[in-house]
């Protein structure tokens, strides 16, 4: 799978860097002088109250929005490509899922691969595997609009992870999930990080924050806190599962 190999080939270039990023929309400042570094192989949490700019930050980091000031870059390449489309190295998990309603769960996941040139059979095989990671194999054939909110969220996660993009930006990926599924999601994201990928999670769930290696807190578009979390410590000690 070329896309996957390409994505994992250069861990050093997977670091997502934001330097002095500011974003004004219609005179309203959504981000102000945000500088962050999302390291490859680590899970980073971005937290903050509603409206603090978490989703906007992920959008700028992933190349969906052009920053008014500063830069967001992946390795040495700017993520903003001039079109509003994300670079191929970035996979998103949207807060609103962003699934294609007329496709089944499996087709939604497979579509992400087929868009990257993977053959149908291979894409469906990997889609089934990805859905299996979130215990969704049994709903693979169902049209997504028939699924519950939690199931749709996990389909969105499967779709983001199946492409094995170097960078995964997940916006509130566990907001609709029960505790068990939340743990499963955290475990799978951790697996991605352990594979050398950059995982960034926007959340206001303290449990998620605690499970991440790094935590940035935002308020009114400004970074208010940066901390290495307990998870990072435990990971350093080798005690994190």
């Amino acid at each position, binding site marked *: 799978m070329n896309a996957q190999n390409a994505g994992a080939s250069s861990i050093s270039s997977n670091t997502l860097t934001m330097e002095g990023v500011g974003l004004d929309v219609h005179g309203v400042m959504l981000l102000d002088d945000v500088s962050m570094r999302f390291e490859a192989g680590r899970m980073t949490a971005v937290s903050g109250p509603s409206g603090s700019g978490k989703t906007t930050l992920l959008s700028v980091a992933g190349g969906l929005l052009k920053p008014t000031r500063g830069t967001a870059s992946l390795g040495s390449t700017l993520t903003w490509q001039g079109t509003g489309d994300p670079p191929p190295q970035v996979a998103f998990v949207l807060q609103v899922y962003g699934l*294609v*309603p*007329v496709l089944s769960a499996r*087709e939604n996941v497979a*579509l992400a691969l087929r868009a990257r040139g993977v053959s149908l059979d291979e894409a469906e095989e990997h889609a089934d595997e990805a859905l299996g990671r979130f215990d969704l194999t049994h709903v693979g054939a169902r049209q997504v609009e028939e699924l519950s909110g939690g199931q749709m969220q996990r389909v969105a996660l499967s779709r983001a992870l199946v492409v094995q993009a170097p960078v995964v930006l997940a916006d509130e990926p566990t907001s609709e999930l029960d505790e068990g599924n939340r743990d499963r999601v955290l475990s799978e994201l951790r697996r991605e990080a352990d594979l050398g990928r950059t995982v960034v999670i926007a959340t206001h769930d303290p449990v998620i924050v605690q499970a991440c290696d790094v935590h940035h807190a935002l308020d009114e578009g400004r970074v208010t806190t940066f901390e290495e979390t307990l998870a990072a410590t435990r990971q350093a000690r080798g005690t994190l599962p």
Partner: protein
Amino acid sequence: MIAAPVDGLRVRRGTHAIIFAIAFITSTGTFTGIGVAREVGASVPVVLPMVMLVLVALLSCTAEVNRERRGDFALMRLRGWSSLRITAAVLAEPALSLTGGCVAGLVAGVGMLPFLARAWLPDGTSASVGVWPFAAVLVELALVAAAMAAQVVPVLRRPMTEQISATERPREAGVVSTFGFVLVFFGSVVGVYQAWADPGANWVVHATSCLLGLAAGMLAPWLVRGAGAWQGAGRRDAVAPHLAASRILRSSGVGQPLMVLVAAATVSCVALGGVLIVNQWAGDAGRIANGAPVFMRYQGTPQQALDATRAADPDGQWALAGATVFDDDRPESRRVYLDTSRYEDVVGGFLDTTAAREGSHAVDELRETSQGLPERPVMSNGRWTMRVAVNESFTRLAELTFRLNYVGDRGADVAFIEIAVPPGQSRTKSVRITGCDDRCLIRSLDVEEGRPCAQVTKDLCGRPKLTLDQVEAGGVDLTSQPWVLEGAAPGAAGAGPDATDAVAESGTLNLIPGRLEVRPARRGQSTLMPPTELLALPVLAAGEVDWGQTPEVKTPGGDHRPAELVGTYAALPVAGAGGVLADLATALSDSSPAVPAAQALILARDDIPADVMSALAAAGAEEPVMPDEQSSNISAAAGTAGVQVGWVVAVCSLMVGLLTSLVYIARLRRAHAQEEAVLRLLLVPTPTRAAANRREVWTLAFASAVVTCAAGYLAVVALLTRAELVDVPANQPALESPIGSTSLLTAIALVTLGCTLAVIAGGFLARHVRHDEASPASLREGTVTP
């Protein structure tokens, strides 16, 4: 109280603008349609399908408004509003746009009615604004309001969880909508049956056209899905076809915009087809009545018209003479005479598109038959000499009267010879023949013996056997001419020299070379006539001609002549669907001077040279009459003005269908923008996305074309061919609606093309979103997809 609905109008201005427009168009259409129809006494239900269609269309629009307001309704219920208050809130918003549209439509209708009346009504008729059109619009408004009120029920009863959910999920069809589907299908079947069982019930035809369209529209989503499955079959390996097929097969609202559009198209097909058929019929009837591209009355006799055309156009390329004698509306009383020798050059294929096509082609056969008639001896001025011998066995003096009937310069004329001949002797007498300066044709020779036999003695009273061995009139030896006895059975009256059988009723006649042997009939008189083949006037007939016992036709001079029927056809030039047509020259050759009722005429080609035209005008031809003028007269007589309301119905219905589709397009556009953003987020290439869009639109267009065409065709076959669109005047060609007629196929093709183009345009409009509208960044927050 009013602020909330006004705010709603502002927020949902797109949908409400469409509701306003539909209400406006419908009110205008209903008002003007009924206004014109009532003025000409036409069938008011002609606007019924439009009203039914609008009912469905407005309900679709208001349902869309309710769909957009789903969250509002949930809030109202959560706040504990009473059902009455929620109902008022639900209805107030669409009621404003609906009422506004109706009022504006009425104003426009009042303004437009005089213009439409001027265009469609016969000259001198004006349409007055009466109560009926207003009442119709009010009834229509009330129906829509009642149906809208019924839509409140699902708003109040829908599960709260669904109403407040951010994700709108597809719902199974409820009992009411399922019942509606069944009702529409059942109604259309019953309507078609009724239309065939009772062809005169026009309101059934009109109502069923809408039901049939709605039924077809309800089938449209299935057809669309079938087409989607077909185009996507075996193409899962390619992203674009797979995406397109998935959208078509799985979108809950796919084909929904087609329902009203197909219904509108079906109504339009029937309405437009009716108008085109009637107009074509009037046009054809006008061409038939005109007989040729140019028709001119002639101030003079038919003979003078014949002479004038032959003088002005010696080669017979441009004009031909004719005459009409229309005594009454019975086909046998409507006689047309045309100079058939010029017919092919002057008229040619002018009537080939009309019901008189075959009749027109038969004129050539009529010409051949007329020209092939045996030559009749021509008598001139001079003397008529008779030598008569009476048989010896006759017991008394034979008191004989001979009457020679002929047609000459003065018309029908007669010469007498009275002669008394003793038995066994012969006598000769001679009289002068006059009135044959030009020529005369002998019609008959009456032989009368003075004393008729009484019934009781008929077997006893003998009849003399007369031998006429010298009968010469105006240079013609009548003993050498073929004769038959009038009233004798063919071949039984001694028509040949060996015929000796006595037929007492009509007398006997032996034709022996050099003499005639005649025994007068019991009644005292026998009439010797030239054989029918010499006297007969070949004719073409149209309609149910009552020939009586023996076919007979009158000449332009009113003389009776045996008719030789060449053929019977649906319609004939100038005569129309009832009448007889004969060759003018043949008819004039043995005719008294034309009766006053005979109207001489000249038919001409439309490219007739000016000098020929001038010569004809100088000779007495009146102003040219074109087929259009004849059509107008026939249209006025048939009351086709009421049918023109079909234009209003067709145009308004199509506009309503298109506007209703726009409501869906707005929603589809929003959904498509989101899906496009998702696909861009997944890095689906632009050409793939565009190809998927194209495939989807073309599939919809294909399905739309098929279902529109099929529904239109079915409606026309099942309904229009059974409708009585106009009161066809006497002797005009029947108004038929053959499904193969150009008018109907044109109507169906035009409507299908229009709808297909609308679907294509609407499809691409719904899928054409600006780059920034479909930006993945737009998915950050907001409506949950799906």
